[in-house]
């Protein structure tokens, strides 16, 4: 990707790079030796000032989050603008760092960046932001964008090796799926220390001489942690449900036994209520009460929660035929199971093998349930 110039001696300060060029072992993610340092944009709203260094003007940031920062995170949690919520990659100065100050590495998803700087209140340090295409640490590590290659490349592109005299990086633990620490050392000369999972534990970690407690190193999935993931799932499910309701309204209008508009309204409202109940069961209640719901598979949990709530809804509606009641019950519980199954992607303890195994039986059942439910719903117009 980057052509490497192998002839000509290098002058300059990075003997390690020089040695690697001469040994012909530079991997293709290394930038060319004469690549200019790329500094992050100074006009980004959270940049408070500039620190003049050997590589130029490094943006200075604070650990205080502004109202705009908090609002941005809130919007992202609700699915607004989260795919374009990024900061420029490169080197930032937090407080008043010098050549000996610690280096913390972050993804360029703004929420990750904000969490990190907020946790380092009152401390001086450097923050090296990688280009993870605006994606958070965990997902980027899984995809390889928060990876060995990008880390090594960014160290040199951002000029970090010229700004600090030590060779240590502190990485979030959840970047480990993407980063091979021993290769980072091999290619860049920098040693990786994996810090705690949560940025909030960094102060204690640092004050204890970079020692983590077992709690700092283990993932939890508390109710609060589950709750903050619900809005995005809810919004996406409601968007999809909103597209489906008109179909029930229009078809119900034609097949119904009253005027088109009366039947359309009636069927549309029932569909909206039923789908909303199913969405709340599968995308809100199941995640919220996850460990308390019977079943290990998420789709089973969604079905278990979906049953009573579907029944509550269905007893409240006066259906013309029992067949419609059964139809909606099947549709609602299938949808609830499907939405709960989707929550595996947001959980902190499901494995790919487990998700595959679960989906092997649950996805066909959900599709069958939805299809049968719709057929029964249609049949109910003819059978009273």
């Amino acid at each position, binding site marked *: 990707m980057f052509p490497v110039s192998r002839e000509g001696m290098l002058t300059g300060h990075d003997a390690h790079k020089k040695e690697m060029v001469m040994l012909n072992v530079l991997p293709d993610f290394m930038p060319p030796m004469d690549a200019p340092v790329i500094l992050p944009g100074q006009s980004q709203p959270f940049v408070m000032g500039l620190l003049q260094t050997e590589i130029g003007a490094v943006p200075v940031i604070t650990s205080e989050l502004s109202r705009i920062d908090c609002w941005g995170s809130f919007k992202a949690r609700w699915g607004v603008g989260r795919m374009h919520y990024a900061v420029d990659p490169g080197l930032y100065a937090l407080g008043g760092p010098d050549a000996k100050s610690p280096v913390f590495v972050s993804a360029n998803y703004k929420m990750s960046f904000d969490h990190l700087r907020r946790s380092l209140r009152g401390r001086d340090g450097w923050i090296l932001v990688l280009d993870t295409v605006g994606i958070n640490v965990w997902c980027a590590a*899984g995809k390889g964008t928060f990876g060995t290659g990008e880390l090594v490349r960014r160290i040199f592109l951002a000029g970090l090796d010229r700004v600090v005299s030590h060779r240590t990086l502190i990485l979030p633990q959840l970047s*480990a799926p993407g980063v091979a620490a021993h290769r980072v050392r091999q290619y860049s000369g920098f040693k990786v220390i994996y810090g705690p999972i949560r940025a909030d534990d960094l102060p204690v970690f640092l004050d204890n001489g970079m020692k983590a407690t077992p709690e700092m*190193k283990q993932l939890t999935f508390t109710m609060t942690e589950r709750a903050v993931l619900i809005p995005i799932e809810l919004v996406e499910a409601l968007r999809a449900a909103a597209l489906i309701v008109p179909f029930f309204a229009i078809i119900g209008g034609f097949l119904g036994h009253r005027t088109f508009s009366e039947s359309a309204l009636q069927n549309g409202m029932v569909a909206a209520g039923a789908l909303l109940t199913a969405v709340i069961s599968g995308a809100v209640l199941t995640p919220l009460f996850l460990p308390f719901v019977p079943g290990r598979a998420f789709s089973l949990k969604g079905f278990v929660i979906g049953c009573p709530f579907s029944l509550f809804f269905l007893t409240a509606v006066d259906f013309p035929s029992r067949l419609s009641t059964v139809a909606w019950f099947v549709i609602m519980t299938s949808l609830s199971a499907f939405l709960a199954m989707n929550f595996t992607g947001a959980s*902190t303890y499901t494995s790919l093998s487990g998700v595959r195994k679960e*989906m092997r039986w649950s996805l066909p059942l959900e599709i069958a349930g939805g299809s049968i439910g719709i057929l029964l719903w249609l049949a109910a117009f003819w059978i009273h």
Partner: protein
Amino acid sequence: MKAAIYLKNVTTLQLNPELCTGCGICLDVCPHAVLEYNHRKAAIRDRDACMECGACSRNCPVGAISVESGVGCAAAVINSMLGRQNSPCC
């Protein structure tokens, strides 16, 4: 801390004690305390707690650990079933 268990006996995690040098990096990076120290080498403590993130295998300098890791969300699995390569989830 009581760990939440997903499904049992599904993990693809494998550890070869003969290659293990006991450096301990795998214990440092595992987010679910799946591994432990046993006779100066790493050993699997709780297979069913493994979420197949791949941190241990990625960081093992001698290749003693292997695991099939990948994007583990239902949306990604559906996309790969449909043959869509480019967008696993987001």
